[in-house]
């Protein structure tokens, strides 16, 4: 589903980035990505979601070779990859409903269909009653769940999450993780970057550890 072949990413004038990463994530896997800040977690997610391109090596996502992808095909790839961010990246002047509907609107889904699917996604994250609210009137945990609903509303085969629980207390964080597990159970491939080891240990899932841009550990549950 996600494959990196000797991928490096360098930034001019910076020691960050990735160094010769090779990894393979099968369809339906739920994988955690961990390491210190600056270890390259975000970079790896950005290369997968095509927010950035690799300096060297090849990245494959859902059978597409991202190295060869033309810029006008980038939106098509992003429709197959739902992305969740620590800072949520919501439109503050639109309602929760409109925010979640956005991935469907850009692909031209019919109105009735949009309503049905947005309601289903909001129901899933427990925010159906807040559909008419503006994001800034919601708590941090609720905003993150809006972001999650937006990432899954178009039913993408792959969901990436960059520190999705970064600003949340342990209780809320566990709820979010439980949501991810439920998505995984219906076949979604998940790649979740987090530095919160205490949160991911009880999940018993495959864990990739990055250190200074290198993949130093690929731990599978026994």
């Amino acid at each position, binding site marked *: 589903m996600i494959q990196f072949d000797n991928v490096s990413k360098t930034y001019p004038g910076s020691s960050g980035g990735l160094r010769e990463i090779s990894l393979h994530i099968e369809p339906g896997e739920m994988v955690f990505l961990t390491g210190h800040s600056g270890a390259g977690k975000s970079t790896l997610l950005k290369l997968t979601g095509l927010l950035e391109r690799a300096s060297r090596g090849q990245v494959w996502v859902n059978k*597409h070779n991202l190295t060869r992808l033309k810029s006008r095909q980038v*939106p*098509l*790839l992003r429709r197959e990859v739902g992305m969740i961010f620590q800072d949520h*990246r919501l439109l503050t002047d639109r309602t929760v409903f409109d925010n979640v509907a956005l991935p469907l609107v*850009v692909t031209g889904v019919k109105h009735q269909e949009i309503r049905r699917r947005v309601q289903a996604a909001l129901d899933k994250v427990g925010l159906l009653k807040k559909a008419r609210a503006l994001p800034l009137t919601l708590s941090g945990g609720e905003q993150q769940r809006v972001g999650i609903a937006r990432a899954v509303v178009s039913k993408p085969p792959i969901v990436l999450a960059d520190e999705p629980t970064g600003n949340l207390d342990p209780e809320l964080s566990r709820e979010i993780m439980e949501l991810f597990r439920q998505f995984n159970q219906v076949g979604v491939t998940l790649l979740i970057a987090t530095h919160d080891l205490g949160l991911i240990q009880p999940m018993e899932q495959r864990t990739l550890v990055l250190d200074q841009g290198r993949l130093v550990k690929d731990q599978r549950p026994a």
Partner: protein
Amino acid sequence: MSRRPRKTGFRRSFRPAAWLSRHAQAFFASLGRLARRPLGSLMTLAVLGIAIALPLSLHLLVNNLQQLAGNWDGAASISVFLKEGATPPQAAELARHLKARPDISSVQHITPEQAMAEFRQHSGFGDALDLLDSNPLPHVLLIQAADPNISPQQLKILLETLKKQPGVELALADMEWVQRFQGINRILQRATALLALLLALAVLLIIGNTVRLEIQSRRDEIEIIKLVGGSNAFIRRPFLYEGFWYGLLGGCIAIILIGLASLALQEPVRHLAELYQSNFRLGGLNLTTAALTLGLSILLGIGGAWTAVTQHLGRIDPSN
């Protein structure tokens, strides 16, 4: 929208209904955004309206002048002024003599008394003219050349001949005036074209700049739309429609301005025309010109928006 799904591995079907509904949505949403900040939109539209109205009004002026020149009976008319002291019989004799020439079709004799009466009536110097001891005006013979399309060279020869006639002080051709008038008209036409070009550029820049500001104020939105897989066309569309609305509404304002201006000018022009015993009427904007103006301003609007969007869209990227 032809796609080659095999090669890229992306499935993408084209559905006309969805395409139409997306356009309709952008069409009305962009109008809604203009309406949501009415003051700013109105000011921009007023500037656009004035910029479009300026060359348009000059164009109308040239058109009217041309119509005026067309009303001129094409035949060259020559005024022959006789020397001071010429008697009425002498003038009448010369008139008869000239009328016999084959290159002259008609001769009208205006006596000093007639000229004075006409001058008194139209000049408004009536009282001042009473102070004159004697009538200073000469006998005038108004001559129409036989050939209505007489060339300037031939006219010059005729003028020379007339000047050599006994008792003639001066021979002047109105043709020169018409030619100068047309010369001026041509300059005005050229100036109109230049002004139109400059102001079209101004309209393009104004709309481009307005759309650029709009793009910057919606930077976050564009980034997020890119994140969730919105194509460049999807992002571009509302801005192009915004340009469309600016063009259309700016053009409408220009046409309204021109309409008001010609309404205000109608009466004085009619009055002036009456003074010249002319039935000339101020020509306003006809339907073709109005439609052309709207079409062009819409094109400029979309063009301005397009340049702004293509310039800035690439720079707004979610990875930053």
